[in-house]
Structure formats: structure tokens, C-alpha cells
């Protein structure tokens, strides 16, 4: 079951420079959570992302992509969430996901208040969108910084080729 909130491994973006400065281009352990992290924070090292941002990608792809298009880019049906996440505070972003929105007749965003999986991933989705907006994460499924997970993903990809 994937309905429980995955633990986040937040690291404020300002810390990235420090990490990179220390030459940790490929960290072997998950970055430690840091006090005072905010929704929308994310970590990108060598194109890989923290677990929370990765979970944001997965949650987006499962629950939002069907309307908002691949990789947050928008579609003929619903706008780009990358742009919306940049324009809106986390509070506003979360409120729309939980409460839904009727923009005009025929243009409706549903409420996800009944969907515990989406609710528990709003912060992660917001972080993923911020990372996309800053062009630090590209299209497609990002890799996770944590080594064990990264290995597993690679192994899965290899098996399925």
C-alpha cells in the first residue's frame, strides 16, 4: 500500500551550495532533515532529488497528470501546475487541492479532500513543482539521492528492459 505519507527528507535549498562545496556530488546517505524546512523546499544534487520531491513526482503522475498533463506542463484540459505553484503560496495551493475550484462554467478543479493519498502528498507535489519551476528538475521520473533507492530503481529499469 502506498497510501501512507512517505517520510520526507527535507533539506533547505540554501544548503545545496554547502553540500556541493563539500564535494558531495553523489552522497551515499540520505541528507538529514533540517530544522525549519518549509513546504516547497527541495534538494537536487546531480539531477537527483530528495525522497519527498520524488514522492511529489509520483503523486502528481498518479493523481494530477490525467488533467494537468505530463511533468506538470499543463494540457488542453487544465493549466500547468508548475506556473501555478510559482504564482501561489503553499496555503493557496493546498486550499485548491483540498477544496477544489470552479473557474468558470465547464472549467472545474475537483476537491481531493476525500483522497488521503493526495492530501498527504500536497507538500511533496508543491516541492516537485517548485523544483520543476526552477528548472532544476527536468521532464520524466527523477532519481532519488538516497543510494539504496537509486540502486533499486536502476535495477528495476534494467529488469524491465
Amino acid at each position, binding site marked *: 500500500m502506498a497510501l501512507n505519507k512517505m517520510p520526507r527528507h527535507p533539506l533547505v535549498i540554501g544548503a545545496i551550495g554547502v553540500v556541493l562545496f563539500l564535494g558531495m556530488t553523489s552522497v551515499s546517505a540520505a541528507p538529514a532533515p533540517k530544522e525549519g524546512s518549509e513546504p516547497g523546499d527541495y534538494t537536487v544534487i546531480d539531477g537527483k532529488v530528495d525522497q519527498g520531491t520524488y514522492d511529489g513526482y509520483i503523486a502528481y503522475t498518479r493523481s494530477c497528470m490525467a488533467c494537468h498533463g505530463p511533468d506538470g506542463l499543463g494540457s488542453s484540459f487544465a493549466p500547468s501546475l508548475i506556473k501555478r505553484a510559482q504564482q501561489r503560496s503553499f496555503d493557496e495551493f493546498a486550499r485548491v487541492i483540498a477544496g477544489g475550484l470552479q473557474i468558470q462554467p*465547464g*472549467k472545474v478543479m*475537483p476537491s481531493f479532500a476525500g483522497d488521503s493519498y493526495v492530501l498527504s502528498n500536497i507538500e511533496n507535489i508543491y516541492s516537485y513543482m517548485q523544483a520543476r519551476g526552477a528548472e532544476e528538475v527536468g521532464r520524466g521520473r527523477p532519481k532519488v539521492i538516497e543510494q539504496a533507492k537509486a540502486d533499486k530503481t536502476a535495477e528495476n529499469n534494467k529488469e*524491465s*528492459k
Partner: protein
Amino acid sequence: MLKEMKYVIATIGLLAATTLQANENQLELQNNPELWATQLGNYQGNRYSKLDQINRDTINDLRPLWQFSTGVLRGHEGGPLYVGDGRLYIHTPFPNKVFALDLEDQGRIVWTYEPDQDPRVIPVMCCDTVNRGLAYADGRLFLGLANNTLVALDSESGELLWEASNGDHTKGESNTMSPLVVHDKVVMGISGGEFGVRGHMTAYNVESGERVWRGYSNGPDSDVLLDPQKTLMMGEPIGEADLGVSTWPEGEWKRGGGAPWGWVTYDPELDLIYYGSGNPGSWNPEQRTVDGEPADNKWAITVFARDPNTGEVKWVYQKVPFDEWDYDGVNENQLIDVEIDGKQRKGLAIIDRTGFGFLLDRETGELLVAEKFAPETNWASHYDMDTGRPVVNEEFSTFRQGVNVNTTDICPTAMGAKNMQPSAYSPETGLLYAGINRICMNYEPYETEYVAGQPYVGATLTMMPAPVQDEDNKGRMGSFIAWDPVKGEVVWETNERFAVWSGALATAGGLAFYGTLEGHVKAVNIDTGEEMWSFKTPSGIIGNINTFQHQGKQYLGVLSGVGGWAGIGLAAGLEDPEEGLGAVSAFAALEDYTELGGVLTVFALPDA
């Protein structure tokens, strides 16, 4: 032949006349080559016109006469009906307006109908609020609204005659399909395969809207309306009872999808209707196993032949038992008469989601041909012609690869090598013509829980253009093909930048027509595929090009207005799989070529 039938019916007596009148009226209209009285042109679904004023010699002069904005954004599927009264009848996506337009007065609005629908239906329509159009018989227009209401309108005034409720949108049920009038009944399916609905086909009385029968796509035989001793499968009685229950894990059939949301065709001689059912509920195959092993999930992704009078199932053919790719089986069943090995057969041809072109015997449901029309197709190597089952390639089996594993490079994508966009068939060439998709996918199943009215999907999928041999075609996402349904061969194909999501039209003028997602209407030489004419409408085309003749002038009419699954999936462009993770560049993005907006464009030759 038709006149004889009418005469016979008339002499049988007035008792029978009322029950057969609607069918008779529709048959009469569709046999008149000047009219386009049903969405697919005729009951057989051929989308072929005998009109030839617009032909290879005159096509260069074809011009738009007038355009009409529907005032509705969103994807415009279906097309205009012309029943000979000097008007065009068109419809729109949600809010499902209907317009009667004066063909002699540049589309002046004769009347408008606009229903009042709960906008909460919009989010349960998985792939845009499309609608595939009106049906007509005996002065009545029929439309299935998004919120599952079937309405009958007086074609003269637009007045509502009756309405019938076919489903509940708060449970995830919705409607996109065009109903079909057969005898004194109008039949309608349902959408919601991504919301765990239980699919069904239902018949209503044309006069009163009263429900006559409902046949489910799953559950006990008594609900499916089949008799295992009589209903055929691969030409033999099914034998075993209640497969619609036993081929599912406990109770899963109740949310087992099988939603028939595509086209219904009808054979007046055999008196049978044909349609395909959709995907079996959750896209996660693991949740549809029995004792951990693949189960057939009957009767999802199945061609049904039913008696339109009672709903009784004459035969079934399950194209994909145990779906692992969302190869929704709703594509139209073209009823065509063919010669195989020197014998005349009543055939049923499908250019299917799966990448395979099928030919079946429409009397018995026997599988005669199953060949790939999209050569990139790799989920199955071939069909076993004795069992009628696909031979699945383990490498691309999302069940064998497992839950939470991203199975990569499966062809075709869940959109299908062809989606619902209806094909055309020319009895002159014996070939089918269809717009197709050249797109592949990565597919990752995950466990999902059913909550009524919430999405019940259980897989993520990402798409990429199908691999091509020719570098010049790199990134190509669509084609228009001519398909030989008997030989199982592509005769010619053209390449398109985007998936071809419009319906096809074949004419006696030696032309085939289709629309592109950029918005072009194109005419090609029906023998070679060579492009002979094109015109760019204001928005991408996912509707169908229809043709008709009024006062000696042949017209073409088409709705443009991008949207649908193609609009959602292709707006931003697809990733280039060869550029690896995090690639910034993308293949052509539809949003660079077109924007939303519904418009009807009507064409004719200026001097005709």
C-alpha cells in the same frame, strides 16, 4: 431492396409499423447518398459516401463557405448530421449544447438547446468532456449528455420531448458516446472505466424514453444477458456459466469497468448490434488476479453481438483477456462483406487499440484475421488463431514485471495504436482507412483502493513517440493508413507530426479525408495516400469529417476544437527517451500549433 422491404412491412399491417418505423426511417435516410443521417454514415459504420462532385479533379477548388463558433472550448468530437431538411444539427462538449443551423443561410441559428447539468460531472470525465454526437430518426434528435441523461429533442423546434437517466455521475459514471437508433429503441452505453464503474449497454424506447433492456459487461450471465449454452465464443457455445463473476477476484466485477463508450454498429439483415467493452476497472492487473494468477476478467475488452430487441448476447469475442495495458476495447466494428479463400463471408473488421487489425465472422464471432497494423506493437507477438488469445510478450507484461515496477517501452501506448476516431471503409477498394497513433509508453502499476466517485486507476503511464527506422520520421506520432482487412496488411500510410485523432471519410470521388491535431483537413488520393488538398481550421481536429448534398451541391462539414486524451497527453509534447532523465527538450508540442475553441467549418466547390 429497401423499397421492397418497406412495402413488405407496410403490408404486414399497421400493428408492426409503429415498432419498426424508427429503424425504417433511419435506414431510408442513410440509404440516400445525399444525407448523413447517422454519425458513422450508415449502420455498418462504413463512413463512406457515394457522392463524387468533390473528386480528384475538382478538389483543388474546394473552399470553406462559412464557419460557426460553438462558443465552447474543450474537445469537439463527432460531426454534423444532415437529414435533408436544409439544416445541419451539431452538438458540443459539456455543457452539451445542440444547434440547428440553416445550411442555406450561412449557418444562421434556427434553434439552440442547452441543458442544465451539474458541473461536478466534469472531473469524473477522465479524458476531457467530449461528446460524439447526435442520433436521429423520425423527427427526433437524441443526445447522451455528460451527466448520463439521454434526451430526445423535436428536430423542428429543439423542444425537449423526454429524458431518461442512464447513470449517476456522483459514482463516477458519465457519458461521451453517441446513441444509436435501432427499431423503436435507442441504445446507449456509459463511460467511467477509470472510476470503477460497471459497464452496460441500455436500450430505451424512442417514443417514451422508457428503459427496455440493460446488458452488463460483467457479473452473472443473467445480468450480461447471455446463455452459456447458446451464446457463442470463437464459434462454439461458451459452456461455462457466470464467467463474468468467476474470472474476477471476489466481488471485483462490481467495479469491473467494461464500459462501452465507443460506437455501436448494426446489421439490419442479421438484426444484431455490435460494440466493444472497455478496460476491466483498475489499471493495476495485480488487483484483478484470481489466486495470484492472471484471470480473464470477462467480459471486459470484448466484442458483443446482441439482439437489439431483447439485448440477448448472440456471441462474444474477448480481444484482451486480463488487460495489463489499458487496451480499452471500444473501437468501432466495421461491418463489411469480404471474400476469403473464395468464399463470401459476413465480416466484422476492427482497427484496434492493441495495434492489431482483426477480422471476425459477424454471424458467429469466429476470429479470421489478427495482424499488426502498427509494426511497433510489442506487447504480444501474435494471436493464437485457434484460441483467439494474444501471445503476450513477458518483457512487456506489466503483471509479470510487477507492481511498483516501471515496465518501459511498451508499444502501443494506452491511448492505443488507434483510439475511438472512427475509420472509413470503401466498398470500391475493399480497404479500411484510419488515423492512427505511433506512441509507446512506460507503465507502472500500483495498488489502489476503490472509493465511489474517485479515480480508480492504479497505474502511472508516460508516453514517447514510437521508434522509427527512418531518421527523417523521428518523433513522428501519427499516421493515416489504408488497411487490407483480409490480407492483414498496410497498403499505404502517410506520416503526421501528431497522432491522427479525427475520424476518416472515404468517398466515391476517389478521395479519403482526415483531420490533424494541428487543425488541417486533408484530402488524399484513396489509392496512394498522396495528399491532394488541405485547409487549416482554427483548432485541432478530433471530430469527424462528414459529407452530404443539398440542392445539387456537395458539402463537407467538420467540427474542429482540440482536446480529448490527445490534447491532454500531447499539449506539452513528449519526452525524448534517448535524451535520458531530466531532458529539457521535447518532441513537438501540440500547444505550439493550436489552441482550444469549437468551430464548425462547411466546405463546397464554389461553382457547384
